[in-house]
């Protein structure tokens, strides 16, 4: 058996940074059991029956919210979706007041997405419910990193020693931050690449190699993770034009030839075809992008299950 421990230390999942490599392995091993549930004729188990999970999405999200909701339903939890638009938040209520009001309805877990880094931590410190961070600003997006790791482990059989190159907007990405923490804890080698304006200073201190040419990042990679260029930031682009970005950093089949033959290409979505990734790559044999989506449900079920039961400390 690979798992050495059988529970997580914290009542919350706020990020990858506080987790140990044993805890990460436990979540990934548990997710294997849950992946099987999604392949059954009846895709539902009674594990979290009677538990209430509130999905508090203060920032737009489709994929993550839907994925969490499916995971919750497959575990038989009751779910309630709360979005910022059209709610009391628009009338000026603070996040703490909103959360305390929701807490008065006794949820067991709260899944939160917020544009402010640290918002999940603020709730976790104040509320007895388990808090799951579904993305907080440019800080962390732990379940995305976990599903990425699950996909790599499923495809390559391990994380240790795997060469992972992450290419794109490194500066604004919470996905990158969580992935760097996870992959370095699991002893993978991480390379980041992108325009200098999109790479934060001193990111090497997190234990990654920085290169500025995409070909250098692709050379010898086992895994290539493409990041989304955030088109909503068009007004203050950190590079001259989208076409120039594609020409310099877009992942094309020609460029991919430098990678290992067995290379897999990942993308956390949503993709901008023809900006950071060519359609031929996104739909090509290297792509595991849709597997990532499938695995996301299993990984989120594992997290909900591990946080949703009794806690040893209580």
């Amino acid at each position: 058996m690979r798992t050495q421990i059988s529970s997580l230390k914290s009542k919350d999942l706020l990020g990858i940074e506080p987790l140990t490599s044993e805890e990460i392995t436990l979540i990934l091993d548990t997710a294997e059991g849950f992946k099987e549930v999604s392949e059954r004729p009846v895709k539902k188990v009674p594990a979290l029956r009677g538990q209430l999970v509130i999905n508090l999405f203060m920032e737009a999200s489709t994929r993550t919210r839907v994925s969490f909701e499916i995971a919750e339903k497959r575990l038989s939890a009751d779910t309630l979706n709360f979005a910022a638009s059209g709610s009391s938040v628009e009338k000026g209520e603070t996040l703490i007041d909103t959360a305390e009001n929701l807490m008065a309805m006794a949820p067991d877990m709260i899944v939160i997405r917020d544009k402010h880094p640290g918002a999940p931590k603020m709730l976790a410190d104040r509320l007895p419910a388990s808090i799951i961070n579904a993305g907080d600003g440019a800080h962390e997006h732990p379940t995305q990193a976990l599903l990425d790791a699950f996909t790599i482990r499923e495809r390559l059989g391990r994380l240790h020693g795997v060469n992972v190159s992450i290419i794109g907007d490194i500066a604004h990405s919470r996905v990158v931050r969580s992935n760097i923490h996870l992959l370095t804890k699991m002893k993978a080698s991480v390379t980041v690449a992108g325009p200098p304006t999109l790479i934060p200073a001193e990111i090497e201190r997190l234990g990654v190699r920085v290169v500025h040419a995409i070909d250098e990042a692709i050379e010898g990679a086992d895994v290539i993770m493409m990041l989304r260029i955030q088109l909503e930031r068009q007004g203050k682009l950190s590079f001259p034009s989208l076409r120039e970005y594609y020409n310099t950093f877009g992942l094309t089949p020609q460029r991919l030839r430098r990678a290992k033959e067995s290379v897999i290409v990942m993308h956390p979505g949503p993709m901008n075809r023809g900006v950071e990734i060519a359609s031929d790559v996104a739909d090509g044999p290297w792509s595991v992008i849709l597997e990532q989506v499938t695995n996301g449900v299993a990984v989120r079920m594992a997290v909900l299950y591990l946080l949703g039961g009794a806690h040893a400390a209580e």
Partner: protein
Amino acid sequence: MNVKKRLLDGARMNRAIRRMAIETVEKNRGTKDLIIVGIRSRGVPIGERIAKEIEEMEGHPVPFGILDITLYRDDLTTIAPQPVVKPTKLPEPIDDKIVVLVDDVLYTGRTVRAALDALIDFGRPRAVMLAVLIDRGHRELPIHADVIGKTVPTDADEVIKVRMAELDGEDEVLIMEK
């Protein structure tokens, strides 16, 4: 915990499992539509051995599967730490088949209740039978075994420990005292 008594050694366990295999075939008048399903953890090696005995007796293999019941336990939210979840693996659809559930010890019956719930999420078997190596009594639910390796009257403060070579390095059944 102290060992009070060794109930079965390896040779006696093997004879018990062989007899369970014979009884399973007898009760079903053959192996038609039979699927052997071991309940994790100790039900798996016992079920595998029953399936192997049947294959040797009848000259053809019987399908074997593994059921993980963790998510169906009635004490899931009250036990800590959480039990580790593993995949269920069934070799073929169970609709209209005769499923023989295999476990090591039948005690309160709650594991079997959970196993029945889990099984029914995979389809509608024609019948479900229960085969256990040890029946120790003290049922809390209306559940009985169809095939039993050994019946042992026990006190509630005793613990039956089944050790299997595949998982524990040795075949034996012990009565332990708390």
